[in-house]
């Protein structure tokens, strides 16, 4: 039987590769990502399932699923322009991905089938820092968490409870897999962040419109108050927190995969809209 051995939550800031090269790997953000890598390495995973939100690079406006899963032997990325981030081929596990998809569909989650695909920085920045050798197979599960359109109905974001339940279904499916794999879950995304939208900072292309929400989420995580978090993560709150704040739905799904209590490590970076965390 496969076992979920732990989880790691990170952001996917596409400027980090260039910033780290410029500032050095002892800068704060690089040290945090190095710590996240230590946390993941300590889990000794045989396979990673990453919950991710695509930025119109795997999918596009003419074909955009709310939930999807990558089913392939390999995938490649990044397929967007990320300075100083190498292009990688990442091994995956087609058989397990097929199993996860079938089990999820049976549980009521209609994961779109994605084959022969590439991914963008939202998968590759975390993998570049967490598993730079790219030897551990990775299965991406995509959640449409961005609200980049003023017409909200055009790109609906799923609810927090729905994403938590998706995580539960994926977790159950992993534990039904007959091979004795050690599976780590990774969640990719920010808590409060606006990118190219109406809540960006003056003179900038991004902003952190709701730092209090970042602190509130961190408080709930450290207290393992997941039900409170799900109650408070409403569409209205996400709207105030910025147009990519729905990336935290990836974390919600991660939390649903296994009930692991309080995190072993967290780091709150309020001014950037981020949290780093690990569960063992």
């Amino acid at each position: 039987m496969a076992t979920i051995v732990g989880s790691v939550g990170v952001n996917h800031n596409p400027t980090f590769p260039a910033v780290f090269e410029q500032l050095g790997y002892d800068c704060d953000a690089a040290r945090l990502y190095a710590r996240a890598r230590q946390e993941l390495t300590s889990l000794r995973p045989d396979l990673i399932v990453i919950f991710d939100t695509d930025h119109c690079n795997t999918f596009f406006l003419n074909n955009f699923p709310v939930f999807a899963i990558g089913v392939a032997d390999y995938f490649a990325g990044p397929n967007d322009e990320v300075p100083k981030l190498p292009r990688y081929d990442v091994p995956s596990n087609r058989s397990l991905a097929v199993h996860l998809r079938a089990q999820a569909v049976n549980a009521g989650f209609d994961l779109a089938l994605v084959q022969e695909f590439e991914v963008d920085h939202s998968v590759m920045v975390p993998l570049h820092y967490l598993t730079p050798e790219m030897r551990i197979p990775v299965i991406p599960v995509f959640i449409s968490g961005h609200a980049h359109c003023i017409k909200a109905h055009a790109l609906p974001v799923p609810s927090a409870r729905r994403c938590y339940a998706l995580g539960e279904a994926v977790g159950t499916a992993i534990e039904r897999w007959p091979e004795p794999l050690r599976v780590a879950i990774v969640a990719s995304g920010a808590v409060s962040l606006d990118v190219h939208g109406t809540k960006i900072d003056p003179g900038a292309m991004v902003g952190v419109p709701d730092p209090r929400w970042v602190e509130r989420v961190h408080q709930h995580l450290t207290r393992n108050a997941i039900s409170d978090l799900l109650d408070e993560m409403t569409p209205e709150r996400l709207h105030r927190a910025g147009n990519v704040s729905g990336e935290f739905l990836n974390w919600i799904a991660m939390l649903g995969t296994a009930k692991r209590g309080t995190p072993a490590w967290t780091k709150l970076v309020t001014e950037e809209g981020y949290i780093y965390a690990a569960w063992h």
Partner: protein
Amino acid sequence: MSLVSVGRLGRDLMRNKALRKSFQENPEEALSKYPYPFSPQERAALLAGDVGTLYRMGANAFLMGYLARYRIFGLDPASYSERMRTVDDRQRD
């Protein structure tokens, strides 16, 4: 829905350096040769760098941001930010 074309232009500018260069050098001519359709209102707003109007019309903000990143239609981060920040999107439909 031609607003998809606005998003497609943003992604193409990110991925295609030759296209990017053509839009930087002569945006009006490059837009006229771009193979995907735009309404007259979208074309006028693009050429004016009026991202606020395009966003109100329903364009995808993330993809539109590439226009400022690559300095297309007279945009840069400062002007892009100023124009997007004037949009009140509290009454989203």
